[in-house]
C-alpha cells in the first residue's frame, strides 16, 4: 500500500496498539495531524495548552498503564518545549516515544524558521533518538523506537521527522509488534552468590525501588519479605509497589523517609536493593550507608551496579525474574530476633508522625483525601513539600497509583501527568496534590482538564511560600528567606471558576471535609485551595550527606 510518510507513522502507531496520544499541532507536523484527523476512530489525540504539559501527560499515561506514552510536537519551540518532560521521563525510566516534526531536509542546517537540532539537544536525555532521512525506513524506525522505549530499562526515545519525509510516498507493509521479551539470561553464578550472601545474613533489609513497579514484581517482593521475615523500605519511586498496611513495610527511606525505615536500615547487616539506583536523596552519606553491612544489588541495568554504591554481590536482570529465581531456589537467612528488633523500632515513639492530624494541616488534608479514595485511584503530585507529605501520609495500596517526578524533581509536572494518568485509567477519578509554587508553573492545563471533562481533583496545599526552599533556608541559611515569600494574590477558587471548573477555598478541616465530599462527586475537574501554615516542615529530615544520627524529627 503506497502511503505518505505521515500516514505510515499513524498506521504504525495503530499497529503498536496506541489509542491515546498527547501533543500540540504546528507547521512542521501539519501532515501528521492531517493523518491523525483521518484516523480519529483509532487514536484519540489530546491537545494540551503547552507542549510541556503534553510530555508530562504522555509520561503519566505510561506510568499508570506500563505502555509507552506518545507525544507529538512541531519543530523549533514545540520540540524544545518537550525537553523537560523527556528529561523527566529519562530519570524515572518511563517509556516514552516523542515525535517531532522538523523543517524539510533541504532546509536543515540553514537556521530555517522554527528549525532546531532536537536530536542533538535530546541526545543526553533519551535512550536513543532518530532523525528520519529515508521515508522507506520510517516504519521500521518507529517500530524500533517503541521496542527500545519499553525494553530493558524503559526510557524515552525521540523521532525527528522532517516535513518532506511526512509528504513523501512509500510502500507501507503492516507488521505486528514484537513481543517485549525481558528474558535476558540471568547469570547463574551471580544468583548462587546472592543466595549465599542472604543465607549468611541475620538482619536483611529490602530496599525496593521503582524497578519493582516497572517490572510488576510486587508479589515476588512481598513473598521475599515473608520468607526472610524482614522489613521493606522503599525509595520514593518504589512507594506504590508495597501496600501501606503490609506488616513488613516501614515506608520510604532517605532524606525525608520515615524514622523506622532509616533506623532499621542502619541496623541491617545486609541491604537487598531491588530495582533502584541508590540516588543521593535516598542514601544520604554513602560511606555510612555501606559501612558495617553487605549490599546485594538487583537491577536490570548493568551500569547501575557499583555506580553509586559498591555492591558485595549483584544480579543483573529483570527484577521479577530474579526474585522468582531466588524464591524458587529456597532463599533463606540465618535465624535471629531481627523481626522482633524491627517491630520495636516500628512501634517506637520516634516512628510516630510529628505532625498532629486534629486540625487542618498537610497531614490531615492528605488523610482526608485518602479516606475518600479507592485503592485503584491514582494520585499525582507536583514537586516540593506537598510531594513528600503525600509520599509520607498517603496510603498507597496498588502498584502504579503514584505518579510523581522522582529523579528530575520537576515542578509543574503534576497537572500534565494527572491528565495523562486520568486518560490511562479510562477517565477514572484522579487526584493531584500540588502547591501554590508548582501549580503556578503549569496551571494552564486546567483548560485541558475542562475541555476533556476529566474527573481530576486538584488539591493545592497553599502556604504562600516556596515551602521546600524555605525549609532549607530555615534550617541551613539562618532564616534568610531569599525570594521564597510569594506576594501573590491569586484567588484559586475564582481562577478555577474562570477556567470553567469548580473551585473551593478551605481554612478548616471541617470545611475541607465538606468540600471534598462535594468535589469528589463532580463529574469533571475541581480544585480545593487548602490554607496551610508557611512553616510546616517535611519531617523527619536527614540533612544532605547525613546519617540516621543526624535525623531531624521535630521542627
Amino acid at each position, binding site marked *: 500500500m503506497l502511503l505518505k510518510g505521515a500516514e505510515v507513522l499513524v498506521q504504525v502507531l495503530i499497529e503498536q496498539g496506541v489509542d491515546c496520544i498527547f501533543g500540540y499541532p504546528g507547521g512542521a507536523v501539519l501532515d501528521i495531524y492531517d493523518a491523525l484527523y483521518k484516523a480519529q476512530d483509532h487514536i484519540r489525540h489530546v491537545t494540551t495548552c503547552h507542549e510541556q504539559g503534553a510530555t508530562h501527560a504522555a509520561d503519566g499515561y505510561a506510568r499508570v498503564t506500563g505502555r509507552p506514552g506518545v507525544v507529538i510536537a512541531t519543530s523549533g519551540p514545540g520540540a524544545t518545549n518537550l525537553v523537560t518532560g523527556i528529561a523527566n521521563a529519562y530519570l524515572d525510566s518511563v517509556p516514552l516515544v516523542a515525535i517531532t516534526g522538523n523543517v524539510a531536509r533541504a532546509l536543515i542546517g540553514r537556521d530555517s524558521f522554527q528549525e532546531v537540532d532536537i536530536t542533538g539537544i535530546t*541526545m*543526553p536525555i533519551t*535512550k*536513543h533518538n532518530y532523525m528520519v532521512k529515508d521515508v522507506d525506513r520510517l516504519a521500521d524506525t518507529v517500530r524500533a523506537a517503541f521496542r*527500545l522505549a519499553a*525494553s530493558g*530499562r524503559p526510557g524515552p526515545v525521540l523521532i525527528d521527522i522532517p516535513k518532506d519525509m511526512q509528504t513523501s510516498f512509500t510502500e507501507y507493509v503492516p507488521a505486528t509488534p514484537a513481543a517485549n521479551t525481558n528474558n535476558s539470561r540471568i547469570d547463574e553464578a551471580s544468583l548462587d552468590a546472592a543466595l549465599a550472601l542472604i543465607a549468611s545474613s541475620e538482619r536483611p533489609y529490602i530496599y525496593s525501588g521503582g524497578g519493582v513497579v516497572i517490572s510488576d514484581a510486587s508479589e515476588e517482593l512481598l513473598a521475599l519479605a515473608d520468607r526472610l521475615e524482614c522489613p521493606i523500605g522503599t525509595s520514593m519511586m518504589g512507594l506504590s509497589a508495597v501496600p501501606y498496611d503490609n506488616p513488613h513495610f516501614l515506608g520510604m527511606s532517605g532524606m525525608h523517609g520515615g524514622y523506622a525505615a532509616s533506623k532499621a536500615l542502619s541496623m541491617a547487616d545486609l541491604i537487598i536493593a531491588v530495582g533502584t539506583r541508590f540516588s543521593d536523596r535516598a542514601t544520604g552519606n554513602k560511606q555510612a550507608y555501606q559501612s558495617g553491612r553487605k549490599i546485594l544489588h538487583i537491577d536490570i*541495568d*548493568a551500569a547501575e551496579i*557499583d555506580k553509586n554504591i559498591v555492591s558485595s554481590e549483584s544480579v543483573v536482570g529483570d527484577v521479577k525474574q530474579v526474585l522468582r529465581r531466588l524464591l524458587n531456589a529456597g532463599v533463606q537467612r540465618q535465624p535471629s530476633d531481627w523481626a522482633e528488633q524491627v517491630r520495636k523500632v516500628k512501634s517506637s515513639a520516634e516512628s510516630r508522625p510529628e505532625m498532629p492530624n486534629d486540625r487542618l494541616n498537610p497531614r490531615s488534608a492528605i488523610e482526608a483525601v485518602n479516606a475518600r479514595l479507592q485503592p485503584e485511584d491514582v494520585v499525582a503530585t507536583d514537586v516540593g513539600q506537598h510531594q513528600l507529605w503525600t509520599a509520607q501520609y498517603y496510603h498507597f495500596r496498588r502498584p502504579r497509583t503514584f505518579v510523581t517526578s522522582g529523579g528530575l524533581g520537576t515542578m509543574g509536572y503534576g497537572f500534565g501527568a494527572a491528565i495523562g494518568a486520568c486518560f490511562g485509567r479510562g477517565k477514572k477519578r484522579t487526584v493531584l496534590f500540588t502547591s501554590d509554587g508548582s501549580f503556578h508553573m503549569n496551571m494552564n492545563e486546567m483548560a485541558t482538564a475542562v475541555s476533556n471533562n476529566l474527573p481530576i481533583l486538584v488539591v493545592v496545599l497553599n502556604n504562600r511560600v516556596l515551602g521546600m526552599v524555605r525549609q532549607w533556608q530555615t534550617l541551613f541559611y539562618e532564616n534568610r528567606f531569599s525570594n521564597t515569600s510569594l506576594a501573590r494574590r491569586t484567588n484559586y477558587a475564582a481562577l478555577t471558576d474562570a477556567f470553567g471548573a469548580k473551585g473551593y477555598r478551605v481554612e478548616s478541616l471541617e470545611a475541607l471535609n465538606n468540600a471534598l465530599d462535594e468535589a469528589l462527586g463532580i463529574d469533571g475537574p475541581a480544585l480545593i485551595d487548602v490554607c496551610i501554615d508557611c512553616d510546616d516542615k517535611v519531617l523527619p529530615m536527614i540533612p544532605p550527606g547525613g546519617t540516621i544520627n543526624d535525623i531531624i524529627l521535630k521542627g
Partner: protein
Amino acid sequence: MEEKFTLSILVSNEAGVLTRVSSLFGRRGYNIDSLSVGETENPAFSRMTILSRGDVATRDQIIKQLQKLVDVKSVALMPPESTVLRELMLVKVNAELPTRAQIQQIVDVFRAKIVDLSPSSLTIEITGEKSKLDAFIANIVPYGILELCRTGVTAIGRNSNILTGTEEKEI
C-alpha cells in the same frame, strides 16, 4: 588508583555516532586522552580507539555506559601485552643546511621518513607506539618544531583476538 587504558569500540557507521560517544564521556566527566576512528572491513561499522584514564570503577562504568548506546556494537578493553598500538605523527621541523644531516640521522635511528622538504624545513612522518613518538619529539625539539600533528592511537588485538559486533542487543 588512576591508570591509563585503551578501549576499542565497534560502532555503527552512521552520522552522529562520534557525538554520541564523545558527549557520553563529556557529560559523565570521563577523560579522553586520545580518540581515533575510521571505517572497518565492514562498511556498516566504524572502529574507535579511545585512550582514557581513571580508577577501575570508572573504567568499568565507562564500558557499561558505552554498552548502553544503541550504536555501540561492542566494547573491548585492550590489554597492552596483547595489543598492537600505533599512532602516526607528522612533524615539520626547522632545517637549515647546517642541521639537515643531523636531523637525517635522528630520522634514520627512529625509522621515520622524510616526506616533504623546503629550503628551510623538513616534514617527517613517523609511526609507532606513543612512547616512541614522544622520544622522537624530545630529540627533534632542539632544531625547532614548526608544526606537529598526531592521529591518536589506534589498536588491534594480537594473534586471533577479533572484535565482533552484535546487531541485536537488549538495553
